[in-house]
């Protein structure tokens, strides 16, 4: 159920009310009333910036007389800065897609400018810090060579893995062109170490669609695959940014989603619960309209309310990225006992790039042994700190 506005702070209520591209007449009136209560504007603007919904706040509050002039001016200035950054990155993305296109390298821009243009209908309304382009794993080395030949600087990972191992175990190459121009060339949406063993991008490549970005035709995900990928991405970050939930809500509102296809794919990929959670959050926090059969699926999963509560607690309180309870959250997202065990084992023994970086290269084979010790040390530290925190 949507949170009752009275149960929220005035800032949170206004933040959630503004976090959508279009307003119904009722929602417009409600925003006017909430703004008239004169919330803590500074706190509201800070939260909107942190959650990536500041342009939407500007869109819905920027012309309201009840909003103080200096607040409107701050919103205008900050939204203009985001618009400039987005437009600049959209230009860079077009450069990269043209480069890959000339070289016959298939590429799929799946977040950033394409998401903003096709789902929000406006490049300026959805902030994005970097560009994400999916390529086939076998094309990753060629993409890296092309980009470094064309002014992009490769940012090596701390893991120090060689190319074959990086492609097998990692998920992306990172590049920088200028300050503020970051590009991630990815061949996975989540790392191999994150589990989700059944999730594969291969079928997704086979059913790509087209969209336009500044009148150029570019490859894009259909609404079902977009929802699946957005849900998986959001879940892996415990949905700590409101903009990720807005993405899901806007796809639901604006695109013709084939629900049967979505759930059939999600079952096959073993990501049913992450998808359900994304939809539940979009419905509960942002009133995304879901058909009855989807609502029935949400109501049937008894774990969802607990997961949604974990997200809400983090979303509407202090910013924390990544949240300390993320491993538990990710464990609960698994429905199958075998998947839970597999994920727990990976968590306990599979070395992360950070673990690998702690050992000199010749001792790299010891990294799986180091991992459980590191987890124990982390746990003990947390236990020692917790009582101190409680005393404060």
């Amino acid at each position, binding site marked *: 159920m949507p949170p009752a506005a009275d149960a929220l702070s005035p800032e949170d209520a206004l933040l959630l009310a503004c976090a959508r591209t279009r307003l119904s007449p009722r929602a417009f009136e409600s925003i006017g009333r909430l703004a008239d209560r004169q919330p803590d504007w500074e706190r509201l603007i800070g939260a909107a910036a942190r959650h990536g919904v500041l342009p939407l706040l500007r869109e819905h509050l920027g012309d309201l007389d009840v909003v103080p002039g200096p607040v409107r001016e701050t919103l205008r200035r900050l939204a203009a800065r985001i618009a400039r950054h987005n437009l600049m990155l959209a230009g860079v993305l077009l450069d990269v897609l043209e480069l890959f296109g000339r070289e016959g390298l298939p590429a799929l821009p799946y977040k950033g400018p394409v998401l903003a243009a096709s789902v929000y209908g406006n490049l300026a309304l959805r902030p994005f810090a970097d560009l994400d382009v999916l390529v086939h794993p076998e094309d990753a080395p060629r993409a890296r060579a092309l980009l470094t030949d064309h002014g992009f600087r490769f940012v090596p990972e701390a893991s120090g893995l060689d190319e074959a191992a990086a492609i097998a175990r990692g998920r992306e190459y990172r590049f920088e062109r200028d300050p503020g121009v970051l590009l991630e060339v990815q061949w996975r949406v989540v790392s191999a170490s994150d589990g989700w063993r059944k999730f594969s991008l291969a079928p997704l490549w086979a059913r790509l669609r087209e969209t336009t970005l*500044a009148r150029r035709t570019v490859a894009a995900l259909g609404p079902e695959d977009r929802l699946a990928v957005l849900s998986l991405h959001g879940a892996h970050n415990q949905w700590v940014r409101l903009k990720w939930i807005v993405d899901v809500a806007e796809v639901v509102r604006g695109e013709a989603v084939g629900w049967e296809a979505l759930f059939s794919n999600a079952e096959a990929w073993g990501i049913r619960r992450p998808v359900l959670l994304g939809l539940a959050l979009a419905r509960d926090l942002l009133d995304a309209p879901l058909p009855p059969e989807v609502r029935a699926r949400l109501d049937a999963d008894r774990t969802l309310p607990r997961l949604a509560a974990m997200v809400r607690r983090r979303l509407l309180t202090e910013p924390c990225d990544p949240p300390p309870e993320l491993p538990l959250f990710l464990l609960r997202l698994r429905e199958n006992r075998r998947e839970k065990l597999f994920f727990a084992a990976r968590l306990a023994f599979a070395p992360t790039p950070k673990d690998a970086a702690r050992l000199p290269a010749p001792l790299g084979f010891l990294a799986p042994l180091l991992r459980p010790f590191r987890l124990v040390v982390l746990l003990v530290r947390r236990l020692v700190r917790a009582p101190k925190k409680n005393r404060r």
Partner: protein
Amino acid sequence: MHDYTAYGLSIRSHFPVPELPPLETAPAHPDLRLRMGPVDVETGMSGREQTAFRVTDEHLCLRFPDLGAFLIEADRITVDPASGASTEAVRLMLVGSVLGLFLRRRGLLTLHGNAVASRDGAAVFLGASGAGKSTLTAALHRRGFRFMSDDVAALDLSGPVATLRPGLPRLKLWPDAAEALDRPPGGLPRAHPGLDKRIHPVGARVATRARRLLAVYTLEPGRAPSLAPLAPADALVELIRHAHLPRSLRITGDEARHFEQSAALARRIPARRLVRGASFDQLPRLLDLIEDDLRHAARR
């Protein structure tokens, strides 16, 4: 002293710059002075290995490892060549990137594009390097259009109508395009060392004064020539993407102004997406499309 004119500026230089068109009557107060002299490249410089820079309210200082340093001030550019640098290469940098940055500091909107003018006004062609801007410009010039600029299109948005200022009367062409347009490249200077792109003098039909801007075109490869309007929001992406030296906008603090100017231009001037054909044989069809479109734009 040597007096020249480019981009609507009167330029007085302490050294000869044959790339610039001469000015017959020397003005008492030139808009820009060029001089050789030492430039401080030790204090407060930052940047990558290739180009170091320093930006203050008063000046912009650039240092290129093999060429030397350039100090751009309100009405003066000081050139400090590196020892052993080719004089011609230093001058090409001066009349290209450095002059472009000077124009930007003077408040002009500078785009990476070529421009020609009909009797009614000017057209700017934007596109990535290799998109065919210079070939198209040469073909339009041969058809009777006046040449306006190659590589840097400088737009003045301060008046009631947007105007384009004439640049340098030279055109950089790849050998195949030059041959197709009956401009044999032999003996002409190279645009960059190691590139076979040659600098062709334009000669006749060169615009000498600013012209009203009629339309902006983005040039792209494709199978057959076509032309389609761009919505202002899409045009804005192209204008930002095809800024002159786009990667320097943030460094020099000009990003916000370029954005505002581009947004104003996208609202005021029609923009088109122009697809050029795959071969030189399709050029006449492309030129017809542009001529028709410019006639319509002039009647707006």
